[in-house]
């Protein structure tokens, strides 16, 4: 039963999207808040990530978009005085914070109870040593291992067991800093790195059991000790590849009942011994040749795997975990899908679900693509079908790799021997290499010997080769996910397609719907450039449409999202967002139209082909979308409207590219046409750059035209606007970027409202926006990027769709942008919606969006920012003025401003490109004022000396192997690195090495002087975590019009 003493609960979110912690926690947190609401509990929410549904007005009572730091959360608790705190729903970030709060005695002091698992339980599960002891006590086998706080202990252990070892740093996300070491030298490097990255400076060194089967169980346990398995999962990739980077199938397929029950019982016993109350993920390794197994690890909280398990089974893990935390037992919780049975059962699947990770390597050509114990995927897709083969094909199609089959074109010209060699390295292409090998006649036994991928999976690939090779879309039928294999009637199911059957289970639901139907296209897997914000937009669109009385259908394949929660839309199709798949659903749903403008590039690119098939695109027409994306048509439009854009050309080859660059004058901006998130976009400073980039771009997109534009270094301005059928335009907010053009807008710090744009320019921006909206006949949202260069406004791009800034502007201005956009897309006018056109009044607060990166996980990737987007997520800082907002944003993004100021790391290493040199003196001046010691490489140092600064000269890595920039970074004297270079990317370059080293050591590396300036201003601002204002964003709107 509900614990009646719980009246006010603090929910901690997981913060920005990083590799290892993605949208799944917004899904989990949102479900948790809904459960709390149902029980009439007041909710205080804290999360630094504004692009989330959980930070929406209608989800919680008090919402703090504040840094997820111990100090800030303590202050929120002291201010709000909740009686309880929920620990298991905010990922590792939320869990760690709760642990720190509990252990410091703060929760006791504030009389706050920790709901869900106790600190003792969490310690037992998370602390490697205590976990091992607990397992030994209950007779569960662990992998031989040693906990080490220094490299020597690790090396000693390796000598003792005499095999390869795996290093896992304690308390890091997605296995950051871990890896497999085959020899002592490798071990020394990985261990050293791992110790540095672990917040408690500890690593686990364990015997490598690479090649064993990796099996996972999602367990749910209540306070009475009732426990059930929600879902079993088997990794396609054997032990050795992080489960987040593995292809996963649910349920397990190669385990006989004896093995399955052995591992199932082990999982339940483990969870029992830990005393988990709520959801828990158990990872096990099983020797493929015996009953020998070992416990890998447990996560005593809702996790990425639990989001997958929820969507694969229909069992809402986060919801049930929250109910348990509130005091309910499993047999008191109703199964939401059947509504007649209870949560105390184990879902029975009558299909399989396959998860395929989405990696960022298509964008990051120099990043190491090898997969190991450190997760590298940014997101994932899930596909459901009645065979592994069909589910896998769906997953590949839905991952938006540009592939409809398992044929990877670039493998075609490899020799058999090269294919044989490729099989040895585990990369994002392993699946396709295996398929290619099967096509070449490698035998299943041979492939098993090399890869240890179970023959069941390999035979699946062979079946694909021998049968269809691709999916057949004729007469697809839809079956439902109902948690119970058809044993009970389902009230709120969701659907997936199969190609052979007789009954279409979606039809009765469609026939029963008396309302007009609309299909909303989702945004697919989370990737760089297309993150959680588009799911946020889709969910709001769905809500608005349902609110208007439509019957809403969502198509999406991302298991981590709120949009794929079964009760978000009227009907959910868990299907790839590909033309044939979407058309097949449209054929049976017969909607009045499709909305493609909320699901990012994934959805928008379907607008044109759907429209060509006669499907109504609601909102801005496919024609207008095409004008925005087609360079020539867009140029013609701008000419007609007499608007400016940076001069540019379209080229097909290197010769043309070089000619164009000469004509425009360097530097120039280069990118392939039709890109998302600045994929392969670069600034070329000279002809060598052009040659290098053309080679890279043409390798991935050989037939795609390449755009070359004059690069204008000015102030970048971003506008989100809503336009109705009468051409009325509402601009809720105009933002400016801290970084000058050249840094991708997604990687820039964005400030709202603007501070460096005068009234006249703002008027002009409005007029241009209105002109563009009218001539493009925008219906709904549009995002326009401008550059202000020598007092002239240039248009960089127009995206007639929801953008990544929509959630944060909606929150800060209180204008429900997605709702208004949806309604205007459906033909309502802004005035009918009670809104006037024009630019909205600005609130009394400033909001700063700060990007967050996952560089430490992407080895080999240059962390220099440029026109190609690299951030995985973002945070928001809200303050009474820019300095306060910026301070909070930087803290939330992980910059340790106060700590660095107070530590011994009072040095700043500066190494910058020539074009930046005129501006460095100003920065050096401010650094001096902050009391920093300056270090610089020779060129930069010479300049600073000439300006009269006291500076230490540091030699380059290539010039002095014993004392150089790298050893300086390792010395602990450096708090910040300011590094800008014209040439980047290539990991062999000295500058790139310095930046990577800084990243590995966790030293903030600023690669734009603008960012550096902002950071130093923030240090000088006098703000600290104790004196900022804690702002409930639900109440920000009240301040509109009373700007201080």
């Amino acid at each position: 039963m509900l614990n009646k003493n719980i009246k006010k609960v603090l929910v901690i979110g997981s913060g920005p999207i990083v590799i290892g912690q993605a949208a799944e926690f917004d899904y989990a947190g949102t479900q948790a808040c809904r459960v709390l609401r149902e029980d009439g509990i007041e909710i205080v929410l804290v999360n630094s990530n504004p692009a989330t549904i959980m930070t929406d007005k209608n989800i919680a009572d008090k919402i703090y978009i504040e840094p997820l730091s111990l100090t800030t959360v303590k202050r929120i608790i002291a201010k709000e005085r909740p009686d309880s705190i929920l620990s298991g729903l905010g990922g590792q970030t939320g869990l760690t914070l709760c642990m720190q709060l509990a252990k410091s005695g703060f929760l006791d002091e504030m009389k706050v109870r920790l709901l869900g698992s106790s600190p003792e339980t969490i310690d037992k599960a998370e602390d490697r040593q205590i976990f091992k002891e607990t397992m030994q006590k209950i007779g569960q086998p662990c992998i031989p291992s040693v906990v080490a706080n220094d490299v020597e202990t690790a090396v000693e252990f390796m000598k003792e067991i005499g095999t390869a070892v795996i290093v896992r740093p304690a308390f890091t996300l997605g296995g950051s800093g871990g890896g497999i070491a085959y020899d002592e030298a490798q071990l020394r490097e990985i261990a050293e790195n791992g110790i540095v990255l672990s917040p408690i400076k500890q690593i686990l060194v364990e015997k490598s059991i690479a090649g064993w089967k990796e099996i996972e169980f999602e367990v749910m346990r209540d306070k009475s000790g009732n426990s059930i398995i929600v879902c079993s999962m088997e990794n396609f990739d054997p032990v050795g590849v992080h489960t987040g980077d593995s292809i996963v199938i649910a349920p397990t397929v190669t385990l006989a009942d004896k093995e399955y029950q052995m591992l199932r019982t082990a999982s339940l016993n483990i969870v029992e011994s830990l005393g988990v109350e709520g959801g828990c993920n158990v990872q096990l390794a099983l020797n493929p040749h015996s009953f020998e197994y070992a416990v890998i690890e447990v996560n005593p909280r809702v996790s990425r795997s639990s989001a997958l398990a929820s969507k694969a089974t229909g069992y809402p893990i986060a919801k049930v975990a929250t109910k348990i935390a509130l005091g309910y037992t499993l047999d008191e919780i109703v199964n939401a899908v059947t509504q007649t049975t209870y949560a105390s059962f184990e879902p029975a699947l009558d299909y399989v679900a396959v998860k395929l990770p989405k990696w960022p390597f298509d964008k990051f050509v120099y990043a190491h693509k090898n997969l190991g114990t450190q997760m590298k995927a940014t997101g994932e897709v899930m596909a459901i079908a009645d065979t592994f083969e069909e589910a896998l094909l769906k997953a590949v199609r839905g991952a938006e790799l540009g592939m409809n089959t398992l044929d990877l074109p670039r493998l075609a010209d490899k020799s058999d021997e090269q294919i044989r060699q490729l099989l040895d390295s585990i990369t994002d292409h392993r699946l396709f290499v295996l398929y290619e090998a099967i096509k070449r006649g490698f035998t299943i036994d041979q492939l098993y010997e090399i890869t240890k991928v179970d023959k069941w999976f390999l035979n699946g690939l062979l079946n694909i080769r021998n049968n269809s090779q691709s999916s057949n879309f004729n007469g697809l039928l839809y079956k439902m996910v109902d948690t119970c294999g058809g044993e009970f009637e389902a009230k709120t199911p969701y659907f997936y397609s199969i190609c052979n059957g007789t009954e279409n289970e979606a039809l009765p639901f469609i026939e029963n719907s008396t309302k007009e139907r609309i299909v909303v296209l989702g945004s697919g897997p989370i990737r760089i450039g297309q993150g959680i914000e588009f799911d946020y937009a889709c969910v709001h669109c769905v809500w608005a449409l349902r609110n208007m009385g439509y019957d809403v259908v969502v198509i999406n394949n991302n298991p981590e999202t709120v949009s794929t929660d079964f009760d978000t839309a009227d009907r959910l199709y868990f299907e790839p967002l590909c033309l044939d798949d979407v058309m097949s659903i449209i054929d049976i749903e017969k909607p009045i139209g499709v909305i493609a403008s909320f699901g990012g590039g994934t959805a928008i690119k379907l607008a044109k082909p759907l429209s060509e098939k006669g499907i109504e695109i609601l909102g801005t027409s496919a024609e207008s979308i095409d004008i925005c994306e087609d360079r020539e048509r867009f140029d013609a439009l701008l000419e007609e409207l007499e608007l400016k854009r940076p001069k540019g050309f379209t080229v097909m080859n290197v010769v043309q590219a070089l000619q164009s660059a000469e004509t425009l004058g360097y530097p120039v901006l280069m990118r392939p046409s039709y890109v998302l998130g600045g994929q392969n976009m670069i600034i070329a400073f000279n002809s060598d750059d052009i040659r290098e980039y053309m080679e890279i771009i043409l390798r991935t997109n050989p037939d795609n035209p390449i755009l070359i534009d004059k690069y204008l270094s000015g102030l970048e301005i971003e506008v989100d606007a809503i336009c109705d059928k009468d051409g009325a335009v509402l601009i809720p907010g105009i933002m400016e970027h801290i970084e000058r053009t050249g840094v991708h807008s997604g990687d820039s710090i964005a400030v709202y409202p603007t501070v460096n744009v005068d009234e006249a320019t703002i008027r002009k921006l409005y007029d241009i926006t209105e002109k563009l909206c009218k001539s493009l006949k925008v219906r709904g949202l549009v995002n326009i990027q401008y550059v202000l260069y020598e007092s002239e406004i240039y248009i960089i791009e127009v995206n007639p769709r929801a953008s990544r800034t929509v959630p944060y502007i909606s929150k800060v201005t209180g204008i429900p942008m997605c709702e208004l956009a949806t309604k205007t897309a459906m033909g309502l006018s802004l005035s009918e919606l009670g809104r006037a056109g024009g630019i909205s009044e600005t609130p009394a607060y400033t909001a700063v969006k700060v990007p967050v990166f996952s560089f430490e996980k992407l080895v080999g990737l240059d962390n220099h920012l440029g026109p190609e987007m690299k951030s995985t997520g973002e945070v928001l800082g809200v303050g009474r003025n820019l300095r306060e907002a910026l301070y909070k944003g930087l803290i939330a993004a992980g910059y340790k401003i106060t700590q660095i100021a107070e530590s011994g790391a009072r040095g700043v290493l500066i190494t910058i490109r020539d074009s930046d040199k005129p501006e460095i003196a100003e920065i050096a001046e401010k650094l001096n004022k902050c009391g920093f010691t300056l270090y610089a490489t020779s060129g930069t140092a010479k300049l600073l000396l000439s300006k009269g600064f006291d500076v230490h000269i540091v030699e380059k890595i290539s010039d002095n192997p014993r004392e150089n920039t790298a050893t300086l970074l390792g010395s602990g004297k450096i708090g910040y690195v300011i590094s800008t270079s014209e040439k980047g990317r290539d990991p062999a370059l000295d500058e790139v090495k310095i930046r990577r080293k800084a990243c590995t050591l966790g030293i903030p590396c600023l690669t734009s002087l603008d960012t550096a300036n902002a950071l130093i201003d923030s240090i000088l601002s006098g703000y600290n975590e104790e004196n900022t204002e804690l702002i409930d964003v639900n109440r920000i709107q009240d301040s509109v019009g009373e700007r201080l």
Partner: protein
Amino acid sequence: MKAYLVLENGTVFEGEYFGAVGEVVGEIVFTTGMTGYLETLTDPSYYGQIILQTFPLIGNYGVISADLESSGIHAKAYIVKHPCQTPSNFRNEGSLDAFLRERGIIGLCGIDTRALTKIIRKNGVMNGRITAKLPLVSDLDSIKSYRVCEPVAKVAGGGEVKVQGDCKRRVALIDFGAKRAIASALSARGCEVRTFPYNASVETILEYKPHGIMLSNGPGDPADPANAESIENIRVLQSAGIPIFGICLGHQLLALANGYSTQKLKFGHRGANQPVKEISTGRVYITSQNHGYEVIANRTKEQSFVNVNDGTCEGLDYGKCFSVQFHPEACGGPLDTEFLFDRFVDRIDESMKIGG
């Protein structure tokens, strides 16, 4: 080869044969277990029935003789959506297809198994015929008239006496179609297990001087007149003061011996995910189940377990004797309620202490 499944209501599914080819009529029941197909196929309780697997991928780990629950397949036929042709497991000895063929069991694959499951869920268990010929309307009557007759006699051990273990506790296992796992669970707990045929006389059983009596699972309607003698025997054994533990059919027969009645469920409980709640503790356990009948538990005092989903009786406790509707011996399915065998052993020990 093309095959049809004709239901008694005239619905026809078109699929393919696997396993043996031929014609067969049986009562179609579905099971939702995702693993454990070998245990299911060889569970004697399925006598006379056509087993329908709701999970589409069956045969993945092949055939493993150590996992069989009896010497043969007692089901009439097997319906699987996609039988696996290339199984993979370190213990695999061959494919499901070959296994069925060798034993002359007809398999049907490639039909919309979910659609069939839903028909059974809505209409209740029904008979069906697997055939290579498209049916005539007149066939339906013959399909409808099919009945499972005296199933226990067909599957129960033919009087063969097996002894397992060598310990101080003697357990007489009365075999109504027992799964092997029951005897194994007892011998693993220090019991000597002697198996008696379902129709062994009370005298024969008592001659063995058992400390406990295990009533096994088995097929069919517990109230089948053919079971009358067994029920009477159980009554006598119970009044002799010997601890009794009944599983599934054994549970139902013990209930009938204690004055309860039974009735047919619409489509039964078959699978490895049925939640049952122990009334005395409030604890919920996930159990393996395979039954089409339930005991009407109109005396709440003795009811020990209840099904969380539909409230049906899952266990009765009479003091010395007790029984459960589900399968604590698992195989296939979860091992969560294995402790009931310990409970049985405790009751035996208690009884031995009192009896001296």
